[in-house]
């Protein structure tokens, strides 16, 4: 698979796909072809080029709808990224639907983008923000679900944690939530490239992801929302393309999804995202899962042999996706990642935009490797060799 990805032709060992994936040639080419042949402002011209650009952009909604099995393309809204999608939900849904004393329940694993907006909205509306914590296995136990009560109005869950790689049982959490009439926001940023996401099967009320973590371009993200919810929400951004009639004092808004897509849109991004979806579909999620699970198993066993590591992931591989966090005992992860960088190995270090989660685990930061379809066992072997070297460099000092 590596040969599909031009950037990987250099001898870089890329193990940071959870931050952003590399892009296959077909995606890169689709963007350049868009500009070479059909670029125009969609929805704004009666001439043929604009019609083509409009049709490429509209088609992208259809493709995403099929991809996540939404019931209508009206439920697919393009944003800049997962972060913007989550802010849109907090501001357009949360602000109008939370009253004093209502509760928002998040997992402690949430990325700052699914946490900070809720803090703001809860403060504004005097609502209460609660968290479901993980057990020693980095999983949400059933007892934590008791925090979901009739007071709960909104629940935020990440499908896969970008720190521990835990796969949350979103279907179960959603069914508990719906018993209490709460709405559920699913952050699929870390699952979308790795497993089939079916919004109807999950019964998610909202679901978000970014294109750039699933082999697509940066600058475009998706917000899925049930039509009955979206159609009653106040637009987030206002201006061109999202209106029907504008009078001096009042405006009527366009239909879904346009009413949430104000201003000139990222058509090249939509075109690239469609190509990324085609790429994933061509390989197939079954094959992706199989390849990545094999690699995950290999990585876990190799890392578990290194007794100088601390590992932060679920014991049961069935609940673990392609993200692995760890630390070299006594070595700060930033030193380790700087040294790994000199060996051409890209891993992430830091708090992964999940400070409350790390704090709840009693750690400041971790090293994080993450897998994608283009990784292979030699990438893991390189990393393991390098980790042994880093540990040797520090060994004699850290014990003194």
């Amino acid at each position, binding site marked *: 698979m590596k040969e599909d990805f031009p950037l990987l032709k250099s001898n870089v060992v890329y193990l940071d796909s959870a931050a952003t994936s590399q892009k296959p040639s077909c995606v890169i080419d689709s963007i350049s072809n868009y500009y070479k042949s059909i670029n125009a402002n969609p929805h704004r011209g009666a001439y043929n080029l604009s019609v083509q650009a409009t049709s490429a952009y509209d088609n992208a909604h259809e493709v995403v709808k099929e991809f996540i099995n939404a019931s209508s393309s009206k439920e697919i809204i393009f944003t800049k990224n997962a972060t913007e999608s989550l802010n849109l939900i907090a501001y357009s849904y949360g602000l109008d639907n939370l009253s004093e004393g209502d509760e928002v329940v998040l997992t402690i694993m949430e990325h700052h983008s699914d946490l900070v907006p809720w803090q703001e909205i809860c403060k504004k509306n005097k609502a209460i923000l609660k968290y479901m914590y993980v057990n020693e296995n980095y999983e949400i136990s059933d007892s934590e679900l008791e925090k979901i009560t009739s007071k709960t109005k909104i629940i935020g869950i990440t499908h896969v944690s970008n720190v521990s790689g835990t796969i949350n049982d979103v279907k179960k959490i959603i069914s508990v939530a719906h018993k209490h009439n709460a709405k559920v926001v699913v952050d699929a940023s870390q699952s979308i490239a790795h497993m089939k996401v079916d919004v109807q099967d999950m019964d998610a009320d909202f679901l978000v992801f970014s294109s750039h973590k699933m082999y697509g371009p940066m600058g475009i993200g998706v917000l899925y929302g049930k039509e009955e919810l979206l159609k009653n929400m106040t637009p987030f951004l206002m201006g061109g393309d999202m209106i029907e009639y504008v009078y001096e004092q009042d405006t009527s808004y366009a239909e879904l999804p346009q009413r949430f897509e104000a201003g000139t849109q990222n058509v090249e991004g939509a075109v690239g995202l469609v190509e990324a979806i085609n790429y994933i579909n061509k390989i197939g999620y079954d094959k992706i899962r199989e390849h990545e699970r094999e690699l995950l198993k290999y990585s876990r066993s190799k890392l578990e042999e290194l007794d100088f590591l601390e590992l932060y992931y679920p014991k049961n591989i069935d609940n673990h996706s392609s993200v692995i966090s760890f630390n070299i005992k006594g*070595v*700060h992860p*930033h*030193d380790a990642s*700087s*040294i790994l*960088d*000199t*060996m051409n190995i890209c891993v992430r270090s*830091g*708090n992964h935009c999940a400070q409350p989660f790390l704090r709840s685990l009693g750690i*400041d*930061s971790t090293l994080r490797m993450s897998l994608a379809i283009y990784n292979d066992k030699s990438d893991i072997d390189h990393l393991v060799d390098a980790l042994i070297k880093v540990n040797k*460099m*520090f060994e004699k*000092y*850290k014990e*003194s």
Partner: protein
Amino acid sequence: MEELDIYNELLMEHAYSKKNKKELDSYDACSLGHNPNCGDEIKLEVKLSEDKKLIEDMSFSGHGCAISQASTSIMIDTLKGKSIKEAKEIINIYFKMIRRENITKEDSKLLKDAMILKNISNMPARVKCAMLAWHTLDDMLNIDKKA
């Protein structure tokens, strides 16, 4: 791998040394430095001489990467016993060195062990770690002037 030279023996010894890592019985100024990139957090304590002209003692606590910890410990060794005026000059020489500006031989002598960080700009992501303590102290010394 020129970058790896940063993690040399001297830096490692400073990074894991406990010598300057303590709390002072009394101090004239105390300030926190934070580098959100890395999560480095240090607390500097400075004790001045009676006439408030000399840095009589200095210590730090906190946690962070080897580069932030070592550069803090080295700074304390380099600046302890200096007058505030000299300390500010040396801090400026250090900043110049990090920015890869030319510094004279005499100036580089004043930096002592801090010279080992001269190539830190080869690792741009880590420059803030090397600057943290020095910026924190620089701010402390300059606040004193305003007061």
